[in-house]
Structures are given as structure tokens and as C-alpha cells.
């Protein structure tokens, strides 16, 4: 599904060069649920941005769902994002003055679907996250957990093959975080590939495997949650 070989990403400012991703090689199979861990600044968000075609990279090859994506036009890249990838962000990123319905509608609009099909998909997605009664609420009228569920509905409506989530539970309390995790697991069971950045070992433990980043490198490409559970992220990273 997602195959990276020797991916590099360098941020240059006047003073410093940051190797945000340094020779990242990994292979996420279709249907997998992979957690990405690593301490702050280790390159997790950069990795998701590159994986999600939100940012370019400076070296290496990246094949997404069998398609080489190193040199795509903006239009193709946008269409690929729209059709194949769903994003879930730590800060939800809902549009504040659109209600739940119109927020979930957003990716479908760019897919040029008919009004009828969009409506069906929106209603069904909102129902799956249990917010049918809040269809015409604005984001500001919802709790954090509810907002994240709207964001998940927005992904579900698009029915993408790959879901990229950047600390989706980072802004939520334990109870709400658990709800969101349950939803993601269910979506994964139904076939979507999920790559999720997380800081919390509990969340990582629900994934099939975890990838660890340190200074832009993959330091443990294939650790199973069993190993992780007992070792805090920072300590593990320090040990290597």
C-alpha cells in the first residue's frame, strides 16, 4: 500500500539544515494498522505529510498503492489525496463556519459527486460515528471527542484506502480517546490501511505494529506492541 525507499526530507533555513527524514525505508501492507512513534521533533509529522502527498521529498522513491508518486502534477496529487487518502489531525481541523453535514461534505465536493450520492454518504458516515442528531451543529457546538468523530466521518464518507492520523487522540481525554481508537480499529477491520502517529503506548499497543523514528530515521521498523508496552518511548529511543 505504502512503500518508501530511502526517503529524505531536508528543511533548509538560512542557518541550519534539518534532516527531518533521513533515509526512511518502510513498507506498509494493505489492511495494516501501523503506529508511528518517536519523541517530539523526530520527524513523525513530516513523515505523514510526505506519505499523504502534502509535502514533497528530496530523495528516495515512494510508491502509493502501486503508483510512483515522486513527480505528480498538483492536480493528480490533489485527486490522489482526495480519493485514496483520509486525514485525521490532532486538532480536528474542521471548518469552523460549516456545520457537521457540510464539513463531512468537503472531500466529496472535490470528487465532483452528485448531490444525491454525497448526501447518502454523508448521512451514513455521520451515523457510523453516532452523530446523526448533530448534523446541523457547528464545530464550536460540539465537544472535542465529537469534533474528532466528525473528522472521522469526513474520512469515512470519502472511503479512502489509506488513513493517516497525526495524534488523533492527542487533544482528547482518556474516555474520548478510547472511543476514537475503537472507531479507528473498526474502520481498519473493514479494510482500510491506517498509519497513526501517537505518543501514547496504550494507543500504539492497539496497532498491529509500531515504527519508531529518531532524528528522521526509522530505528525499529518492526517492533511488536509486546516489546513496547514495558518500555517508554523516550527510554527506548535513548537505549538505541
Amino acid at each position, binding site marked *: 500500500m505504502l512503500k518508501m525507499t530511502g526517503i529524505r526530507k531536508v528543511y533548509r533555513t538560512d542557518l541550519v539544515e534539518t534532516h527531518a527524514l533521513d533515509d526512511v525505508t518502510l513498507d506498509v501492507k494493505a489492511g495494516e494498522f501501523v503506529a508511528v512513534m518517536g519523541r517530539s521533533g523526530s520527524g513523525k509529522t513530516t513523515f505523514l505529510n510526505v506519505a499523504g502527498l*502534502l509535502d514533497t521529498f528530496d530523495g528516495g522513491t515512494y510508491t502509493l498503492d502501486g503508483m510512483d508518486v515522486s513527480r505528480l502534477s498538483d492536480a493528480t496529487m490533489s485527486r490522489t489525496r482526495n480519493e485514496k487518502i483520509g486525514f485525521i489531525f490532532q*486538532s480536528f*481541523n474542521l471548518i469552523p463556519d460549516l456545520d457537521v453535514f457540510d464539513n463531512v461534505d468537503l472531500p466529496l465536493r*472535490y470528487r*465532483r459527486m452528485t448531490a444525491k450520492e454525497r448526501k447518502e454518504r454523508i448521512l451514513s458516515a455521520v451515523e457510523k460515528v453516532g452523530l446523526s442528531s448533530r448534523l446541523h451543529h457547528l464545530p464550536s457546538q460540539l465537544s472535542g471527542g465529537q469534533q474528532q468523530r466528525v473528522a472521522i466521518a469526513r474520512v469515512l464518507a470519502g472511503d479512502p484506502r489509506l488513513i493517516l492520523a497525526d495524534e488523533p487522540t*492527542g487533544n482528547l481525554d482518556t474516555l474520548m480517546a478510547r472511543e476514537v481508537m475503537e472507531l479507528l480499529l473498526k474502520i481498519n477491520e473493514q479494510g482500510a490501511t491506517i498509519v497513526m502517529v501517537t505518543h501514547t503506548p496504550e494507543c500504539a499497543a492497539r496497532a498491529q505494529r509500531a515504527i519508531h523514528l529518531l532524528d528522521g530515521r526509522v530505528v525499529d521498523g518492526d517492533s511488536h506492541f509486546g516489546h513496547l508496552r514495558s518500555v517508554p518511548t523516550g527510554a527506548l529511543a535513548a537505549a538505541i
Partner: protein
Amino acid sequence: MALLGYDLFLARKSLRRNPGLTLLVVVGIALGIAVSTTFAAVRHAFQTDPIPEKSSMLHSVRLDSWDPAAPHPDRVGVPPQVTYRDMVEIMKSKIPVRQSGMFKTNLYVFPADKAQNPFEEMARVCYRDFFAMFGAPFAYGGTWDEKADGGEPVVVLSEPMNQKLFGGVNSVGKTVRLRDRDFKVVGVLAKWMPNLRFYDLTQNYIGEPENLYIPFGLLRPMELQLAGNNDGWGPNTGTGFEGYLASESTWIQMWVELPNAQAVAAYKSFLDAYATEQKKIGRFQRPLNNKVTPLLEYMADREVTPRAVKSLFAVSLLFLAVCAVNLIGLLLGKFLARSGETSVRRALGASRKDVFLQHLVECQLVSAVGGVVGVLLALGALSGINAWLKSQTGRGDLFALDLPMLLVALALTAGAGLVSGLYPAWRACQLAPAVHLRIG
């Protein structure tokens, strides 16, 4: 364009979210459109072809019979009118399919209805071809016959004059007293309101057409006095009215209808031959410079569109441009303030083009609202100018927003939307999706 509906929906939301800013932009565009549309309409009134079906055939005739010592001060160096004696001679040409020399005079009108007071009225003294030449339509009767051109007391009334004298009924055959004799009505015009009195551009050409038309042949028997411009040189050799007619005074507008280029060329050589002939008797001492000018060209020669109108129009376009340019910053600020939202759209599948069009549609929507307000303001301004003009010339309907002017307003509005919106929309679509999604 599949997203046009969605873009309009988003634009409406965005404009409502920020009513103060929206108002500012609308007012900016509205002022620019109001001013530029107003002056576009004013200019249009002067530049419209008054008789498109035959303006290319109607030619003004100018003869350089002027003072050998110095050219005529007119821009083209030739007097705009001809002398009486030259008119009489050149009217003998058979080349024009229609022709008329003409001037205007003031006459006292004595209504048949004794309850009405006599009043002074401007009359046009012309040949029978005048009406067909200049497209004046008849409601009743028609022009006088050829014999009457020689000086019979017959008259053609305008529609308002027939209304005033005869209550609007078919008055052909009735008589009306003009100055000292009874005139028989031979024709009544239907409503005729060309933009300008284009058949006489020598003076006060903004105004309604005259209300009375009488044969040129009455000039001598009635000793009709000129009410227009008289432009002459040299000593008046004769005396009295006849002396005036024989003088080098130019005071007659001369028009010919020439159907094609051959006719124009033939007529031109006819005039030159006439001038050469006149040189022998000591007249026309200047180099040959006779002009046969088609109507529209003649209008340009005469600078029918006042210079002030031209420059005001140019300045108004500049004003609109300044308004639009001023809005660039406002819109840019607004669009960049929601760069977070734009980045989310980009992440979820909006291409650069989608984002660009979304923002451009928003600019066009707000400028369309401004355009509508601007057109309403322009309507108000034009009716103000019309009222002022009526007080000056009696003509109160010269300036209007007709279809072509509404299209101009539409184009200006779209242009203003583009000028103010292109750069901000372009900046918005250049926003990288990743940067603004970065969290903690």
C-alpha cells in the same frame, strides 16, 4: 466549473462572516462602477451612431471659400458651413440622390385656436429631401413637393407641435399662421428623437429636433433671419438682405446623400471643378480644400464628444482601477487569514485550481454586488445629469443605461473583480497544504 455552485455557497458564507469587510469592498467597487458607468453612458450618448442604417452615405459638404490671407480657424481649416451663393450653385448637381442646404430661424406661431397665445418657435429651413435623408418618420402626410422648395408656404410639424396646435389629430391640409402668412400643413412627423441634432452640428446640437420645417425657397420672400452661427470674412459689397446673401458669410449647413464611393469621388470632383471655376472670378483663392465627409467622421471632426466628457471618462476608469487596486490588500488579508481552512481543503483534495477558482468566485460575487449597487448609483447620477441638461437645453433624456451600457457595466464589474481578486486568489492557491496542518 463543476464546483461553481459550491464556490458560490462558500463565497456567500464568507461574505456574511465578515460583514464589515464585505461592506467596505462592496462600497469600494460600487463607487468605482457608479462613476465609470456614469461617464461611460455620457460618452456613449455622444458617440452613438445616430442613424446607423445610412450614416456612411450622409456627407457633410465643406468648401474652402475662406480668406486667402489666413485659413479658417476650425480644426480642419475649412468653414463648417457654406455661403448662400455656393449652396445655390452646388445644389444644381445631380450626383447626390438627396441633398439639402439648411439653417434655422425663429418664427412667431399664431395658433388657430384663439385661446392660445402666439409664441416664438425655432424652425428649420430646408429642402424637401431633409426628412428622407435624416430618417425623420412621418405620422401623417409627407414632405412638400418639388415646386414648394421654390418658396410655397407649406410646413411640416413635429409630433409635439401637432399636439400643441391641433391636439394630435391628423392636421394635414389645415393651416397655421407663421409670422405674417398662413402655412398649409403637408406633413406631421411621428415621434423623432435622435440622440443629437446630428444634422446641424454647428451649434447647440444637444437638444430636441425643431418643431417646424419650411421650404428653403421662403428665404428671400420672407427675408428669414438666421438663428444660428454666421461666420464670414471680407467686405460686404452689396446692401441689405441681398447684399448679405451675396456675401462671403458662411451660414448654411450643406448635406448630400451619396450612395457609394464612385458617387463620393464624382461629387468631390464636381466641387473641385466648381471651386476652380470660381477662382476665375476671384473667389476661392486658397488651395483647393473642399471636404465631403461622412457623418461619423464629421462628428469626430467637429469634436461632438466634449473633451471634458472624454477626459472625465478616462479619469473615471482610473478611479475604478484605484478602487479595485485598493481592495487587493483587503482581500489578500482576508484570504490569508483563513489559510488554515485553505490548507485543510488542499489536504482533503482541493487542487490549486479549485482553491484559485473558489477565491476568484468570492471576489466576483462581492464585486457583482458592488456592481449592482454601482449601477443603481449611476442611474441616480444620470437622472441628475439629465435634469441639469434639461434645464440647460430642454433635452432631458440624453443619458441612459441602455443594454450596451449595462454590458459595459458588467464588463467593468468583472474587470474590477479580476483586478482586485487575481493576486489574492493566486496567493491563496499557493498556500502549501502541509505547513498549516503542522501541529505542536
